[in-house]
């Protein structure tokens, strides 16, 4: 079995894996980082979104081997120690989650959205950009509010952290 090595949440991680192992399986089963979820297997629901080298990617359709040498950030690595990321805090504050299953993917997508579109996001932009993330609980109303607020609050973050 080939060996894959990547940096996950700031730590070098390595494992011998079946070549067909998906990134989400590597994260969940080899590293026991179970915050990244599998909701559909067809790249539709976005529960598995993580960042690879700073960009949002669906881990359910990414081969782990293709991430050799990459920097991967998952929901577990988003907070700064005990200090929540502003987007995490905004989801809590605005009730942007109910069952919590889609939430890690939503938050990782939202952080990437701010990187691409800036801190002032209007409702239409947020709704269109959530095309790849499904939520069955919230009706999206509070997710949209949370992302708008989280985006604003991210403007006061140090540049290096916000870019992650």
């Amino acid at each position, binding site marked *: 079995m080939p060996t894959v090595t990547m940096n996950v949440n700031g730590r070098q991680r390595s494992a011998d894996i079946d070549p067909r192992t998906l990134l989400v399986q590597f994260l*969940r089963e080899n590293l026991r980082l179970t915050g990244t*979820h599998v909701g559909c297997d067809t790249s*539709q629901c976005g529960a598995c979104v993580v960042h690879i080298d700073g960009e949002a990617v669906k881990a359910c359709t990414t081969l782990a081997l293709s991430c050799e040498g990459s920097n991967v950030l998952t929901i577990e690595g988003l907070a700064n120690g005990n200090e929540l990321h502003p987007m995490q805090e905004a989801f809590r504050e605005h*009730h942007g989650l*109910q069952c*919590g*299953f889609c939430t890690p993917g939503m938050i990782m997508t939202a952080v990437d959205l701010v990187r691409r579109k800036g801190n002032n996001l209007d409702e239409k932009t947020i709704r*269109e950009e959530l095309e790849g993330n499904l939520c069955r609980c919230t009706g999206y109303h509070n997710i949209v509010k949370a992302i708008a607020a989280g985006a604003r609050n991210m403007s006061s973050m140090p540049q290096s952290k916000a870019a992650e």
Partner: protein
Amino acid sequence: MGATGIGAAIPRKEDHRFITGKGRYVDDINRPGQAYAYFLRSPHAHAKINRIDTSAAQNAPGVVEVYTGDDIAADKVGGLICGWLIHSKDGSPMNAGPHPALAQGKVRYVGDHVAVVIADTLAQARDAAEKIEVDYEVLPAVIDLANAQSGAQIHDVAPNNVVYDWHLGDKAATDKAFASAKHVTKLQLVNNRLVPNPMEPRAAVGEYEEGTDSLVLYTTSQNPHVARLVLSAFIGLAPEHKFRVIAPDVGGGFGSKIFIYAEETICVWAARKIRRPVKWNCDRTEAFLCDAHGRDHVTHAELATDAEGKITGLRVSTKANLGAYLSTFASSVPTYLYVPLLSGQYNIPAIYGEVMALYTNTAPVDAYRGAGRPEATFVIERIVEMAARELNMDPAEFRRKNFVTQFPHQTPVIMCYDTGDYDASLKKAQEIHDIAGFASRKAKSESQGKLRGLGYSAYIEACGIAPSAAVGSLGAGVGLWESAEVRVNPIGTVEILTGSHSHGQGHETTFAQLVSDRLGIPIDNVSIVHGDTDKVQMGMGTYGSRSGAVGMSAIFKALDKIEVKAKKVAAHVLEASEGDIEFKDGKFAVKGTDKNADWGTIALQAYIAHKFNGQELEPGLKESAFWDPTNFTFPAGVHICELEVDPATGSTTIEKWTAVDDFGNLINPMIVEGQVHGGIAQGVGQALLEGAIYNEDGQLITASFMDYCMPRAHDVPSYQVGMTTTPCPSNPLGIKGCGEAGAIASPPAVINALTNALGHENLQMPATPERVWKAAQGARLRMAAE
């Protein structure tokens, strides 16, 4: 404690683990030495199984065992059950065909369970399943409700594929109302089949503990105690005292995780056989194929009105598709959860409903968010809207004229509405929505070549389900009370053990708010324990918006007992008579004096038991209660949908949504509003986007998120949510329940708005762009001519 008590819109306690990726769902649980189960499923909708050859699969790499229906038969594993007995018009009991966890001799829908492969890894199990040879003799498939009675017989016990032919109401009185009606409105409708699709797919881990000869099942369940009861008492896997069922964090349910399915049955049964934990995780296509679906009715309805525009009668005839087998509560959904709600918010003197439930070669159909009540609301709110249009009356005024205004109100179909103020909700919704401005908004749309429509839905639902004796008399196999235990620790922190189960509803917060309010302690000093049959003695679980009205009432009742006991302790500590002890804001005080003791002091004294005689007053502070409701609760409200249709493309855009609901008293308005938002989106999904479609061979052609259109963020608007309040008189907190309202109210609001925009009534759900475009062509021609 106002800041965190009843009525406070505080953020949720449980959120921290979910936003940091530390939730613990079933698929996150791995047990030492676990093997993986993969189910071989039927590719045919209806076929005889002549032979299954598993030998090649047995010898494949990593395979531990392969089991088929013969193996569960040999072990006398009982079939899956339907827990609600319905009797047909002629008094005969429903025709319930056997429902084995692995098929025995026949498969009845695509996805039916043929065999299970258990291997060291999931990939090995999946690979080995491809080596199983099954000799199928394909039979004609029965898919359509219209042809189900004349199609091939699916179960030996059910001639013409009839599960039951049931009715409710006074037929003669209703026919009489129609005979003397001034006007009769007729409606033919389809309530489309839906797939619940909670974002977390189902999963199970079964484990056998050899030392104690006991079973453990981790499962994605809304009601772990009911799962244990069924798996134990009916399926016969182990007695309840040797069987622990754990439902940890569960990622949404919407009804689909109430039921006891084949997969968890097999996992826990097989774990004992192979002496290893067995894990199964559903992929999304399996969820589409095998999770119980919702709705799927074809209905003909007629509404009689008199010369004054008063409703005098309602006659409804429905065919309900129950799929290939009767799921756990399937039989109750199109009967007692449906026809008793047909009266809506209206004073209708005569109602008659008849329901023919049929088997087809499709996935089982059972409760999905609202369960029967959305189907009833769609009938009554569509036909009331149509009647108003036919009578040239304003739809809101027609509703107002027929609203129930005196309470209690006994309908002709079982329900006794206890309280409500339907006009208050209608008025408030109209104000918030700016109904007066609709005409100018419509004119503006038309100037841009768009059609604008407005639709009302004045829904009522029955929640809390329900008084145990009452549901028992209607055929329920269980009681529908709830239990609670309050454990006060010696330092005054509190654990609440509840039979309710949270899978997104926020019980860890709202239940703690109740305790905080009542005992005067911070919510962080309260923890909620649920979802584990070894911790919580018994419970009926969460569905039917019952956790507030029933679950919290049980906690309230247990807290009453805690207060009584704590006062006895306080009387000894403060050296006063029990009758002089007052408890308020977390303090016990002696009436008329400045003597007092705080909550923590009394909790500690209850346990150290130095200040009283332990023979006369038991040490400790722990109480439990069961709450059996005295009535259903009746949340009601008005939703208004305003939308715009582009007749050139058939696309529909919801421009404005107003919801005004009366849920009685609210514990946490933020959470309540969140429930409304989510419900509306599911209802909009049903109205515009979603539909499970089988082709004529019984293949589900909408079996992934690429084919089944789930509502996405850009499909729905932001919602304007308001409340009115008439406290529920049948429980101590005055709660009615809010979980299903949005999904119940919204489909007719959307279709009423669409038909208003289009100018005719012929439009079925889901109103896809194709259907809307076709329906819009008449209006388009009219606009072009003007």
